[in-house]
């Protein structure tokens, strides 16, 4: 089985976002980057599929030189091959998807895994876009993937419950938390990843269809009040919730 995973390189979740001088993007100075957390889950799932069905796992990332760090981490986790689709420009999800789809069309994997969303722009688009571009099925926010021959039965999250979804391969799956616990790269894996090659190719993405015209911080919340230190504060809390917030 050939499994491909698309992974993105995003600011660390600890990052306190500062708006850059262009007022359209973030100030990247001092920001640490990492593999998007849902993409780690996707890589883990791919490795488990390889363990079960044999074959190979290829990871792809579209972006600048820096994306190699995230590709390197996937290699350390144990993937067989890493490809950087090189592109230094800022793109929207549609454009990123066109670049990935072109490469994936040639690769023709049985399974393509994505994270359910990148935790930078939180678009939740790229995976489903790639599926539509390749004309193959997709199942979003999966917490279980059970492959039996060419048929796949998934559990997918919906509001307040789960759906069982059936589909056929080749297909795209978007990993949600709960699908698995991603492994930490072993020391041996990290050492081995240092000498594994990362294939580089120029990406040829289409033009973005969504453009950012302005970025700003959300309005700061006014510091609230401390209304007490024990249960004697409860009546006052109820009064505030009733009179001021009007929520009860």
């Amino acid at each position, binding site marked *: 089985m050939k499994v491909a995973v698309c992974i993105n390189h995003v*600011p660390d*979740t*600890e*990052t*306190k*976002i500062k708006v850059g001088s262009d007022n359209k993007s*973030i100030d990247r100075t001092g920001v640490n980057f990492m593999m998007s*957390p849902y993409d780690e889950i996707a890589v883990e799932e791919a490795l488990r599929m390889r363990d079960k069905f044999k074959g190979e796992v290829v990871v792809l990332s579209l972006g600048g030189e820096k994306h190699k760090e995230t590709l390197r981490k996937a290699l350390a986790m144990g993937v067989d091959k890493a490809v950087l689709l090189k592109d230094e420009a800022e793109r*929207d*999800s*549609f454009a990123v998807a066109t670049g990935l789809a072109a490469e994936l069309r040639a690769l023709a994997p049985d399974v393509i895994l994505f994270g359910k969303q990148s935790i*930078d*722009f*939180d*678009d*939740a*688009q790229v995976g*489903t876009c790639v599926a*539509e*571009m390749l004309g193959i*099925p*997709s199942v*979003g926010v999966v917490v279980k993937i059970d492959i039996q021959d060419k048929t796949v039965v998934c559990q*997918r999250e*919906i*509001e*307040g*419950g789960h*759906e*069982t*979804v*059936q*589909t056929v391969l080749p297909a795209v799956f978007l990993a*949600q*938390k*709960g699908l698995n616990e991603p492994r930490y790269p072993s020391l041996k894996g990290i050492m081995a990843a240092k000498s594994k090659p990362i294939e580089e190719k120029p990406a040829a993405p289409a033009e973005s*269809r*969504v453009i*950012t*015209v*302005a*970025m*700003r*911080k*959300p309005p700061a*919340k006014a510091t*609230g009040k*401390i*209304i*007490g*230190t024990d*249960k004697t*504060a*409860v009546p006052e*809390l109820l009064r*505030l*919730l009733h009179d001021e*917030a009007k*929520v*009860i």
Partner: protein
Amino acid sequence: MAILAFVEHRDGKIKKSSFETVRAARTVADALKAECCALVIGSGISSLAKELGPYGASRVLVVDDPALAAHANLAFAKAIATVAVQQKAQAVFLPASQMGKDLAPRVALKLQAGLASDCVGINVENGDLVATRPVYAGKALVDVRVTTPVKVFTLRPNVFTATQGSGDASIETVSVTFDPADFVTAVTDVKVATGRPDVTEADIIVSGGRGMKGPEHFALLEALADVLGAAVGASRAVVDAGWRPHDEQVGQTGKTVSPTLYVACGISGAVQHIAGMSSSKYIVAINKDKDAPIFQIADYGIVGDVFDIVPELTVQLKQALGK
């Protein structure tokens, strides 16, 4: 010209987020002097159509087909795109629900449209649409423009108001031709936990962290949630410890929520947690540590023991609400 709003329903009921979507579509349609059309897709769902006029639809289009009894994303996306083309829709609005997010990218590509996800505002400026959306889990906001002639937007639940008016809509049936290939991906079973609402849809969330000390003590939060008709949420620390299910996690790698009231119990307020809930309208924090970062964003804080305060809050609320 029309703005088309996709309407999601479950168990014979239209979802609140879809009423919000229709009302938002109407507001934009009025500003553009366009028509607001709502689209309902499913099997045996024609009776739902009449509920949409009061939320702003002037026409309701119904695709009612036994083949659409269960959700099938390829067939649904085809139906939405077909109707959008027929109606010459200049924009398609969907709720940013799990279903909406599953369909929107496919609908957008079929219409050669750009898609702005999870919008919290859509304004008309000089005849063009400018959408506002949170990025970096709400740590920043961006205004975006979609450059294609047709535009697709998903709207975050609980943000737009579903104002009800006295409008009346005409109802039209539309038939769409499907192929067997449109059903290769299909839902075969749905399990919905009855009782408490989901965190993304709830108006009130009672959320617990490591300060709850163990899974058994979440019964205290469930009791409070039940009095309030609230959802139960959790920090990642307690989800990772296996005390609560994944789908309750609030934060940057969990759910982003915008309820009217968020009650944080024994939660420190790490950046990743705050990212997911800071857009709540009112935040109550109960925490032993006066320096816990959660107090920086809480409207009302009690520096104290959850085991002292939460049961008392439940009792007094019950009395106050006559339950």
